[in-house]
């Protein structure tokens, strides 16, 4: 029912450090969509050819998420960074670039910080429009993995997406991060699905492959279907087994069944 996309930063690491080898390994395992993080520290031309040779399409890339966007002084640099990230994505045949908030600052109210970040994203949306890419805004959990970031609840990302109000700016709903932050997808997804362009998953706790934790995947896939999600499911997990292909067999079977 859902097409799967595999993150090659966390998965297929058994193929080695070279991303090209991970692409090959993922393709061999039958995956035709993949995701990576940054492109600015990579040989994009070689990678583009490897993707093409193996018939693998890139679903998302990430603009370096460490910029502290709550500080307006970072915005000019961020826009340069975003433009390069978008150009890198395009060179790889990808039209979706993920943008995070970066770290928050403790002595300013959240509402003010979200407004400042929204201004940066709004300016980036003009670049996205010019280059014909989509910005995906993602919240990540502070409970386990990323303490200190600003976008920690789905609502933070939603506030910015709605504040910018551009068709170029959409929501990446990461179900693992959402659950890790204490949210219930059944409460959140129906409310935000209209803004969602991409969904990522991993199990919780542990961020391993679906089936390694406590999440009921039949129920969650059913929920995604019920709310009308028809996009790709990005798997962004740390496999608990040596073979990524074997680790992902459970979620592949589940997606094939229904």
């Amino acid at each position: 029912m859902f097409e799967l996309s595999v993150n090659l930063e966390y998965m297929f690491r058994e193929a080695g450090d070279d991303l090209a080898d991970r692409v090959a390994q993922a393709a061999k395992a039958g995956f035709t969509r993949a995701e990576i993080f940054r492109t600015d520290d990579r040989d994009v031309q070689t990678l583009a050819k490897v993707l093409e040779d193996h018939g693998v399409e890139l679903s998302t890339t990430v603009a370096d998420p460490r910029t502290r966007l709550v500080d307006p002084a970072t915005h000019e640099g961020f826009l340069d960074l975003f433009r390069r990230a978008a150009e890198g994505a395009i060179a790889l045949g990808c039209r979706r670039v993920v943008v995070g908030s970066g770290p928050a600052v403790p002595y300013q109210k959240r509402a003010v910080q979200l407004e400042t970040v929204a201004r940066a994203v709004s300016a980036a949306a003009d670049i996205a429009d010019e280059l014909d890419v989509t910005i995906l805004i993602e919240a990540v959990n502070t409970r386990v993995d990323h303490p200190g970031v600003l976008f920690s609840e789905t609502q933070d990302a939603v506030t910015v997406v709605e504040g910018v109000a551009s068709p170029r700016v959409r929501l990446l709903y990461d179900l693992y991060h959402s659950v890790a932050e204490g949210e219930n997808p059944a409460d959140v997804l129906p409310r935000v699905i209209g803004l969602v362009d991409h969904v990522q998953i991993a199990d919780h706790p542990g961020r391993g492959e679906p089936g390694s934790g406590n999440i009921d995947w039949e129920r969650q896939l059913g929920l995604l279907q019920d709310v009308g999600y028809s996009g790709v499911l990005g798997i962004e997990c740390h496999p608990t087994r040596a073979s990524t292909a074997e680790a992902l067999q459970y979620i592949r079977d589940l997606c094939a069944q229904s």
Partner: protein
Amino acid sequence: MELSASIELLFREAGEDFGDRVRAAADAGITTVEIWQHSNKNLKSLRKALDASDTCLWTLLVESRAPLADRETHKAFVEQVELASRAARELRCERIVTGSGVGFPYLRRAPQHEIVVDALKGGAEVAAEHGVVLVLENLNTRVDHPGTLFDTTSECLAAIREVGLPSIALLYDVYHSLQMRESPREEIEGHIDLVSHVQIADLPDRTEPGTGRIDWSAQLRDLKALGYDGPIGLEYWPTTNSVRSLKHIQRIIREL
């Protein structure tokens, strides 16, 4: 139950001099007060005002906003604990307050927690030498202090247990706890032995009790039932003059 007023936020009508604010609080019947920084105040004249009005200073801050999850900050943090402890002794204050500082997005919470515990241990040891208690405060990240590492009561309590010294305890801020959607009763039940102080403000705007959505009568009854018998610290932004802002909570305490 007794009330303790933050004279950083209340009794500002009395002017910039903290001695004057102490006197204004005493005139309003509040003889327990709290301050933030000590380094920006004349401690001698403050001490004089406290003594003259028979007022007790309940807390002051360790002047470090350093991210304790970074070991590089620990030395300076312990120095600040030392300075705060000395100021506290001079003012006959027994509690010095700290938070954890911000978290770092690219290190998991568990290792950051351990590093903060090490800093707190160092701080609590210095506090003990001076006969004061280092009190760790929970701060909310949802509204006021995004990025702060220790934003839940349970994590503060866990850290305090791990430090395991009598010179560390919890400043349970009910306002911050409620902003994190915690249930105070559930958070504090079974841990009252570690609660050295309680602060309150109403939600959503951190104003005086009675101006927001919290049932303070129920909250204070719960705290009392759990065994808390210390003062209730008032750390809010008054929406009216300070004396009038106290009326609601004073009446609740009388009727408790």
